[in-house]
Structures are given as C-alpha cells and as structure tokens.
C-alpha cells in the first residue's frame, strides 16, 4: 500500500469496513480524540503512554486524556511519575488514581495530589499503604471533587473539611474515628452515597445531618467491630454485610431497599449474641418494600423461629434470598413468607454457603434441647435437603403454600442445580404465580 491509499483507507473506516469488502483498514485511529481518550481512561497511564509511539495521529492522545493512573511497581518509581506529569497537558482531570506502597514515594505524594487538584480533578482514588503519612490540609478543601475513594489511609482532618461537590465517598480499611467522621460529614453538604469497608475504629455513625445521603454501604469482616450503631434517617438504600458482632440500626425510617448479609465463616460464631441483634434489626426493616437476605441470615432467623421469638409483620413487596437450600433455612423462610402479606415478587439465588455454621447450629440446638426433627417440623417434611434429592421442587411448593399475594418467582440457580431446570416449569399449580429460571 502506498502512503496515499493508506490514508484514504483510514478515513473510510467505519462506513465500509463492516460491509466485509475485505479491505484491511485501521479502524481505531480514525475514531475522534474524545473517544480514544475515553478508551485510555480505562488503562494505567504507563500503558497509555505507549500509544504515543504508534503513529503521528497518536502522539498527543495520552497527554490530553483527562485521566491519570499510577500504581507502584518495580518499573514505576517516583522519578517516572514526576516525568510523566511534566509531559501531561490536559487542563482538566476527571480521574486520578494513585496506588502507592513504597516508602520512597512518600515525600512526593503531597505534590502528586496537589497536581491533580490543580487540574480540578473530579474523581480521585488514593490507596496509600505506607507508614507515617497523613494527608496535607489542602486535600480537605475542594470544590471540584465529586467522588473520592481512600484506601489504607489515616483520615483525621485537623482543619475543617470543605468538599462542596462531593457526592460519593468511600473509605476502605481507613483509620477514621467518630470525631473525624463527624468533621468530614459536616463538610459534605451534597453527599449522596457513603461506603465503609472495614473501617474498624468507627463506633457510632450519626448520619442525621446528612440530608442528601441516600445510599449507605457498610462492610465489616469477621474481626471488625465497627460501626456498632447506625443512625441514618434519610437513607433510601442500605447494604449491610457483617459477621458475628451485632450492628444496631437506630433510625432508618426512610429506607425503601435493604440488603443484609451475614457471613459467619468464623469458628467463633456466637448465636446467643447474634440472634437477638438480628431480630432487633428486622423490627427496624419491617417497613422496607425491597429486601434482600443473604448469607447465613436465614439460618439465624430459623434459630429465632424455633426459639419462639416473635417476628414482625413485613411490608415487603419484593424479597430476594441468596442462600443455600437446605433444612436449616426452612423455619426462617416459612415464617418470613407468612408474615409478608404484600409480597409480590420473590427471587431466590442459590449460593454456596459454608456449612460450618449449620453444624454449629446442630450443636447449639442440641445444647438448647432442640433436635433436628423439630427443625423439620413434621416427619412428613423430614426430607434430606441437599442437592441430590428433589428438594428444590419441594422448596418451591413450600413457598407457594406460604404466600398469598405472590405474582412472580425467579429462581437463579448455580451449576449444581441445573438438573432441576426442566421440571421447575411444571411446578406452578395455580396460574397466579409465574416462575422463571435463570442460571449462572
């Protein structure tokens, strides 16, 4: 190909090349700068820079891309990052990612953050797994930041915080106290979404003054204890994942959707402590229209049901259960369905749950003078609830028997349940409930 026809071929690109006329054309270089830069925002800067060696057309695409992303590695040291910043020309930054774990980089971090803020960065991700680094004061004052994620950071502002445009804040494995959190919240007037992931120092989370906050996500690992109390009267959506240490919901009166996941893979599971706390939480969730119960929560509810603990009446309209299907969940599910007079839609995801808890449940119930037969209620129901039996159709029938207003049921089955796909369709005895299947 001569130079002229190569250029001509490049210009024609997307108009004719789908037609399969066999012409080999450069489809990507013909895209406008804006689109190429958008593509480059998805890759680390060290790879984006490589594109400047492709051709004349590509020489300045990376340096005008409104996104920079640096991750510590043996080939990316502070000098490289500094040099990249001198070559960078974009006046405005949409995304800035800094993932540092080398102590040699610590003296430069302030300068890099300042660089990003000088370009009015909107979305910043800082993962700073280094010792003895605390944020400069200028980080806490920004009118451009809309989304901020901090990981492994010690977040204790000494000055007042002013993030006037911040809508989305995520703190992952950060050291942040109740006082620091209160300071941060008072400086975020338009905050809509807040995420805490393993922020152990928090104890009382008071979100009553965050009037625009709509979404709260709290993830605590088995060893984490915080936050213990959550006061969030304005939120509409709550995602809560924790293990044996209870979490108390003080005020969640505006909630329309909640997803509660208890995972108790730890051997030091404490049913006595957990079950009352879970029932208290259910009281606070009884008005919520869309609920998801996941992990081992249903097993805890079964314990409560067998102990004769009263359950609230639920206003739920759409219920999702993510659980293993076995006998330990039956009493809990039965009671929840019976107490849900408005339930229209039920979705069940079969997942693989650890059975350590179930075995502990046996032990606990034996200790409490219950036995397995009581779990199954009547000898007729004494089914061996595992994948090999026909328990899934039985489960579906149990659901249909215990619901009054159900319209739709979705079953999302993992590979172990594929054998049931064919017969599920025949299960719905009445025409009122439609049953759909999906699998992954």
């Amino acid at each position, binding site marked *: 190909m001569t130079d002229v026809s190569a250029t001509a071929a490049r210009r024609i690109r*997307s108009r004719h*090349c*789908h037609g*399969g006329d066999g012409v080999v054309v450069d*489809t990507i270089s013909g895209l406008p700068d804006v*689109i190429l830069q958008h593509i*480059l925002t998805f*890759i680390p800067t060290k790879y984006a820079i490589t594109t400047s060696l492709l051709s*004349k057309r590509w020489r300045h695409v990376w340096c005008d891309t409104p996104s920079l992303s640096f991750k510590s590695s043996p080939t990316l040291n502070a000098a490289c990052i500094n040099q990249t910043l001198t070559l960078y020309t974009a006046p405005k930054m949409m995304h800035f990612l800094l993932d540092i774990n080398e102590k040699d980089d610590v003296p430069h971090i302030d300068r890099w953050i300042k660089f990003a803020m000088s370009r009015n960065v909107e979305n910043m991700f800082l993962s700073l797994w280094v010792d003895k680094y605390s944020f400069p004061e200028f980080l806490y004052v920004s009118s451009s930041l809309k989304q901020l994620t901090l990981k492994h950071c010690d977040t204790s502002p000494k000055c007042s915080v002013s993030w006037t445009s911040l809508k989305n804040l995520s703190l992952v494995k950060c050291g942040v106290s109740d006082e620091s959190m209160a300071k941060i919240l008072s400086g975020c007037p338009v905050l809509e979404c807040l995420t805490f992931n393993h922020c152990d120092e928090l104890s009382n989370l008071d979100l009553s003054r965050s009037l625009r906050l709509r979404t709260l996500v709290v993830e605590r690992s088995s060893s984490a204890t915080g936050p213990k109390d959550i006061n969030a009267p304005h939120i509409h959506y709550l995602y809560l994942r924790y293990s044996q240490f209870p979490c108390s919901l003080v005020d969640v009166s505006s909630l329309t959707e909640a997803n509660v996941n208890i995972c108790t893979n730890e051997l030091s599971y404490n049913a006595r402590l957990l079950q009352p706390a879970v029932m208290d939480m259910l009281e606070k969730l009884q008005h919520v229209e869309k609920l998801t119960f996941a992990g081992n929560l249903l097993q805890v509810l079964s314990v409560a049901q067998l102990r004769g603990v009263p359950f609230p009446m639920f206003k739920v309209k759409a219920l999702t259960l993510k659980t293993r299907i076995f006998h330990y969940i039956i009493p809990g599910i039965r009671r929840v369905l019976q107490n849900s007079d408005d339930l229209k839609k039920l979705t069940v995801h079969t997942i693989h749950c650890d059975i350590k808890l179930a075995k502990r449940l046996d032990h606990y119930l034996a200790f409490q003078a219950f036995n397995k037969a009581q779990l199954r209620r009547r000898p007729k129901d004494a089914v061996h609830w595992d994948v090999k039996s026909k328990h899934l159709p039985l489960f579906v029938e149990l659901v249909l028997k215990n619901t009054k207003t159900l319209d739709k049921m979705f079953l999302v089955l993992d590979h172990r349940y594929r054998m049931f796909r064919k017969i599920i369709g025949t299960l719905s005895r009445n025409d009122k409930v439609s049953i759909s299947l999906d699998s992954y």
Partner: protein
Amino acid sequence: MSKIIVLKCVGHNPKDFELDEAVAVQFGCIKDLFHSDFDAESKIVVDVPMKFNSYIIGRILEFCSSRASFSSDRAYWEQDFFHPCREPNQRKRKELIAIMEASEYLGMESLVELTTQSLANYLKGKNPLTIRSLWKVEGDLTAEEEAKALAMGVAKLGH
C-alpha cells in the same frame, strides 16, 4: 403495552426491529418516547443512520434482551458477551468499535462503557508493534520523532 417502537435499519442489509418496552427503555434516546403523549396504539419508527447496519443493531438488541430478562447480577453474562480475554479476529474487533459507536448514538451508556473497556483491554500492556499489527495502524513516525519519544523515557514507562 401496545406502544411499539420500530428501529428501521437501512443500508447494506435493511431490516426493521420491533422493540418492546423492556428493551426500548434501555436506549437513552428512545425511553422518553414511552412517556410522551401519543395514541397508545400507534407505532413510532426511528430511522437508524446508514452507518449502523442491521447486524450491529441486532447484536445490541441481543444484549438488551439478556439484560431485560433478569434484573439481577449481570456481571457473569456481560463478561461472556464480550470475551475480553480472548483475541478474536479483525472482524470481531471492527464489530466491537461499531457496537460502541452505535450504542453511543442510541444513548446506551452501560454498553458504551462495556465496549470501551473491552477496547482498552486490547491496548493495555502491549508494546506498540503488537498494537500496530492488531489494529493495522500505519506507523508513520519519523526516526527523529521516535527517538525523541524514546529519549523522553516513554518506552521505558511503557513496560
């Protein structure tokens, strides 16, 4: 329920696609039509520009139908749809770009993000020569320009 949107594709392989509401509301440029004031029985025809042929629109609708059918975790089959880890042939790569452009036109932000991310994977971690041969980019830098770029430490950073 009786509102029907028809996507009319002209060009190489003309075809009309009828969309139901669950699929049509995923298109940013179309969903407002469902809420506008018109006779419930009528059909609305949307003309698709010639550069988006019926095959591409068909692929996009495949994506939308899968999405509309079950509103839960989509991560699994979305990965499946685009096979970002594989290295499909030239035709598939062109198709990816075409789907990206068409979904941008139709206002499907999620599909734009997905296709852009897949395209990014073809650039990530590859040296310039590999990228040039993958995408048939004509390398037209002069020796001087290339040396200048290398001297600025660009190639070193690219590893």
